[in-house]
């Protein structure tokens, strides 16, 4: 797998269906007329869980690059690491 690429290695799908009935005692059980004294609801939900893996090859023998492994993710999450950030410079 090439360095920096992301793959989806698996997924878990959970599907749930539920049916609920609420009714006025006795009246709700009268054939046909009982529908006026009862309420039925149905719900369905589907949840998918995927696992994403992104490779990041540590090339330095002393693992110096490990310090930078999450730099981009921290920046994307707008988490400050306490170090001033050097911004790229435009030429006008």
């Amino acid at each position, binding site marked *: 797998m090439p360095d920096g690429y992301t793959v989806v290695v698996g997924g878990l799908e959970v599907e749930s269906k539920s049916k609920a009935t609420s009714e006025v005692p006795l009246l709700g059980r009268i054939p046909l007329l009982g529908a006026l004294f009862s309420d039925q609801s149905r719900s369905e939900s589907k949840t998918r869980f995927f696992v994403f893996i992104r490779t990041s090859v540590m090339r330095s023998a002393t693992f110096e690059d490990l310090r930078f492994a999450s730099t981009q993710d921290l920046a994307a999450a707008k988490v400050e690491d306490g170090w001033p950030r050097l911004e*790229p410079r435009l030429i006008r």
Partner: protein
Amino acid sequence: MSTWVVGLWGVAALATSLASCKSTAPPGPYSTPAAVSRSTVEAEALSREGADLVEKDSARAETLLCQALTKDLFYGPAHNNLGVLYLKQDKLYEAANEFEWARKLIPGHPDPRVNLAITLERAGKIEEALASYGAALEVFPDYLPAIEGIASLTARAGKKDERLAGWLDSIAMRSEEPAWRTWACSHRAKFPP
């Protein structure tokens, strides 16, 4: 008679192949400037306009900077500014490519080298980034952004460099940004005076 006809066909085929070579050869950064049309004044105006829009409207800025390079492929600042735009979009490969162009086209300007170093640093390429900051300092020895970059990366990577104390002094005294001055002072305290 048949020999003459074959010879004529051969000359025609050679002429055709040479013509096609000329039309398909892509102009590179080292092509003769006369080989392609250049309009540097228009490229400069478009590049400046694009640079002003990098923060506000990145799509429009990209269009203008690409138009600037269409006007003059060898206008270095447009390559640099397009690289800055790509870097802000986290397109590190494209950004590095543009900064390389800019570095070759305006070798006396330190900014493309500093920007290339920032790109390499974000990609985790520490040694290459340090070398690029160093190259910017060779071009312009007291260039503060290059000093900030190389000092920060050297400290972050835990490298031992005898010049680090001097760089931190320089940042503490010259930087206009309080965050850089504070950082430099706090790290300077770790070194003997």
